[in-house]
């Protein structure tokens, strides 16, 4: 005993100065993050899916926070932080998560003790330009650090995690061998965090990296509550390269600009008065070319989406120079954020149970994109066409006064639902004579059946479904809990 403590005392003074001066390394600044996720089953929303454990690498930041992608942290049930070499583990939790920007911070669940002792937080480098040399850090399964050099050579906008959302991406070339099934890897430039590796194409040896600039804006937003998030501009655009289009729009032949082809009602652009047919010439002082790109001071030619979303923040004002009917106008657009619940069809659902209601075996839900995606990658071709069409044309339903799209997702065979077993994917218009605008309105409507019979009016299929209230109540109380092990007949939260 005496000998060991003596040894430690002797070693420490020697070790400390060398660690303070050395650049951070995988051992000092990267942790394994083991996350067990368990999302809800969107087909049977009263229960969760099979738990799934994934392992990723997180970057240690100031204040004992560990940065990972939101994709890794989705629907987290249980999280461990692990020292790669020693295997030492502590339990942890999600501090902040944003699924659009695809980032999350993980913090210890309890007093970490000396878990972080000897470790060093990474600084963040937001000044990187193409041609910089980067290192992708990871560990062998035995804990040995591995650093793979890659060259950062291109900037573009690309998807992070959610479908149809495009943000700043750094592309780097070089071989990166995946070790021990890790999910997302920290990317380093001269000892500082340069980004998080999102995807690696092994054939072309191209890495897609979520850059530090986006990490930085996320952390700053988290540090200064309330969390503002990314604004939703809400336009679709089309290039103006076609000379015939330019002459039709009375545009100067040489002078760039991008055509607004669609404006989403209720979003930032529409609220400020941007119209279909407007041509955006400038955003916040940056001139847009005929493809809608601008010259970024750091990255060169880049899509204007970065100005409107990635680089912008909710609460800011976007200054636009437009051409409308051949005349220039200036327009200030206050930027606002749209949360998934603000859409008719939630574009994503994480960390919460889907809303549903069961009436005697008929399963009602609010339509969400994850529900449609149950049909697989080809969901647009495979899922019920009416639902897919509604998802693509949400405005029509919002204008008709709906807040959410309530539909019958399926029918559980029960005494109450004899003859109705094959119904699925039916949009609900009315229940007991009341318009259904969301699940809460449905929960209210099912309280008042006429003469002991519920009347449910749907688009397509049987058009009208009748359910016996007494039988539904009995099945809700006995058959469904016993046979299907349904513990809660609804979730309206």
């Amino acid at each position: 005993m005496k000998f060991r403590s003596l040894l430690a005392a002797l070693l420490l003074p020697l070790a400390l100065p060398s660690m303070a001066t050395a650049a951070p390394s995988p051992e000092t600044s990267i942790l394994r993050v083991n996350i067990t996720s368990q999302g809800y089953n969107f087909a049977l929303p009263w229960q969760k899916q099979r738990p799934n454990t994934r392992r990723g690498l997180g970057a240690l930041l100031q204040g004992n926070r560990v940065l990972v992608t939101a994709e890794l942290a989705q629907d987290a049930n249980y999280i461990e932080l692990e020292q790669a070499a020693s295997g030492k583990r502590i339990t942890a939790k999600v501090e902040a998560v944003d699924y659009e920007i695809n980032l999350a911070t993980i913090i210890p669940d309890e007093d970490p003790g000396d878990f972080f002792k000897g470790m060093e937080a990474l600084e963040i480098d937001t000044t990187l330009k193409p041609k910089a040399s980067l290192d992708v850090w990871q560990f062998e399964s035995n804990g040995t650090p591995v650093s793979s050099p890659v060259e950062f050579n291109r900037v573009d906008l690309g998807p992070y995690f959610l479908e149809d959302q495009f943000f700043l991406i750094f592309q780097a070339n070089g071989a990166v061998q995946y070790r021990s099934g890790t999910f997302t890897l920290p990317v380093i430039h001269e000892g500082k965090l340069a980004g998080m590796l999102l995807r690696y194409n092994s054939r072309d040896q191209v890495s897609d990296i979520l850059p530090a600039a986006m990490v930085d804006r996320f952390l700053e937003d988290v540090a200064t509550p309330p969390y503002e998030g990314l604004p939703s501009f809400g336009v679709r655009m089309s290039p103006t390269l076609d000379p015939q289009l330019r002459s039709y729009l009375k545009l100067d032949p040489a002078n760039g600009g991008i055509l607004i082809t669609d404006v989403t009602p209720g979003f930032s652009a529409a609220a400020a008065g941007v119209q279909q047919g407007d041509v955006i010439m400038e955003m916040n002082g940056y001139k847009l070319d005929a493809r809608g790109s601008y010259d970024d001071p750091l990255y060169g030619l880049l899509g204007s989406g970065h100005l409107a979303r990635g680089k912008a923040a909710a609460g800011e004002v976007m200054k636009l120079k437009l051409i409308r009917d051949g005349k220039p106008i200036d327009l200030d657009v206050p930027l606002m954020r749209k949360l998934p619940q603000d859409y008719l069809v939630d574009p994503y659902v994480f960390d919460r149970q889907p809303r549903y209601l069961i009436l005697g075996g008929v399963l009602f839900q609010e339509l969400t994109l994850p529900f449609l995606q149950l049909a697989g990658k080809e969901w647009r071709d495979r899922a019920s066409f009416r639902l897919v069409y509604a998802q693509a044309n949400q405005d029509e339903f919002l204008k008709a006064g709906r807040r959410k799209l309530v539909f019958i997702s399926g029918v559980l065979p029960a005494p109450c639902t004899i003859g109705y077993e094959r119904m699925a994917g039916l949009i609900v218009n009315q229940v007991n004579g009341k318009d259904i605008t969301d699940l809460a309105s449905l929960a209210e409507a099912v309280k008042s059946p006429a003469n002991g019979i519920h009347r449910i009016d749907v688009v397509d299929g049987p058009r009208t479904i009748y359910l016996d209230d007494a039988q539904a109540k009995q099945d809700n109380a006995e058959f469904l809990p016993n046979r299907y092990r349904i513990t809660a007949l609804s979730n309206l939260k």
Partner: protein
Amino acid sequence: MFRSTHFRPAALACLAVLTVLPLATAQQESPDEKTTSLGKQYESIVNVECSALRVDYRTPWNAATPSGGTGTAFLIGPNLFLTNAHVVSDASRIVVKKVGDSTPHRARVKFIAHDCDLALLELEQPSEAFAEAVPLSISPEIPKLDTTVKVVGYPIGGERISVTRGVVSRVDYQEYSHSGVDQHLAIQIDAAINPGNSGGPVLQGTQVVGVAFQGYSGDVAQNTGYMIPTPVIRRFLKDVQDGRYDHYVELAIQKTPILNPAQRKALNLPDNDTGVMITAVDSTGSCGGILQVGDVLLALDGYPVDSTGSIDIEGEQTEMAEVVERKFVGDKLKLKVWRGSKEQEFEITLKPFPAYLMQANRYEQQPEYLMHAGLVFQPLDHELMGAFSLTNLRTRYFYDYYAQDELYKELPEIVVLTSVLPDAINTWFRDYTGQVVEEINGVKIKSLKDAADALAKEPDGTHLTIRLAGEGRLIVLEKKLIAAAQERIQRKYGLAQDRYLAP
């Protein structure tokens, strides 16, 4: 009856018509024999060789591509042969050959019914060769389950006539895959039916009880061949007696079974297993303006309808449409309906419902098109959907819901920008194909002819504008560039005509 489009059983996709025996093998010389070991009735069963022309909807200005196949036909009257429509569809030349005689006799289609896959042929020059042949007689009845039948024809596997034998396995409604959208009574048999059997008689004793016409491919189901039963054959023969084929008549309604006790209670229906609930009534169909959604149909011409939509007809439990199937354009039908807790009687006059043909296979039809400045416009139908693999969500909506949402009332034809023949004038429009044309120069487009008229008219400004449905980017063409481009494109891409509009 036409099939309701949105609840299509997956396995039906494999039902296939059976003429696929290619001409090349079938043209080999058959042995020149005047006598056969077969009975007299086989003299009336002939081999049909059909040279067909299939058009490519992607190049509608081109002549059609020759193809062909063989099948079977049989004599049913003086110089009158019955066969399947799919054996002689799109025919450019038809030749029939008698059993044991390789002499080709040229024949032509007298009547063809694509909705029930039947056709009548006649020899162009009535021949002595058939002077002795006795027409086969068609049984007035549907054969009973488990009774023996034999199939005679010229299927794959040899040159000479073939006979196979089996029993009646099932009598039921089936999709007729030739049109792809029609359902009629069909009889399943377990006698082998192979490519080339199509159009051949299925015999019980000396009488024809059906026409062999389709089957499942072997990896889906075994020994399931189908024949067209005599009620369908007789209806076809009766329909053409006035010199033309009028198509089936349709109720043009959708229905749902009444199996749940709450439905009976809510509708005040007696608990007697009778009636189906009406869920859609096509307003231009036979029941338009008479039936209402929510009505319960109790009986058709006195036949009680049970709660799943079946009736008992001649001792057979069958789909209620069978009552309608045996009727013709202009015939009356009595409906007994439960509405507002009371029985009511109506009489309707039956007529066809052409809107559902949007999703049917097309035959003998020269595709319509219109080319303007390299933009090719064509009316939407099943062939177009397949030829261009159209996936645009709005285009799919127009196609899938054309009949159901009664889009045909507003839009007799859905005009699609199907392709662009690349040229300097249209180089920026190639990403816009597959979408529905909504307006040209501000004029709403309701048919290909509308599009032709709108394009022919001089626009007010300097540009021609085309608005596609759901697309915020207009297609704009500078007027002064169009004439030269039109001439140039037509010449370079070899279009003898810039349009074909059916008269």
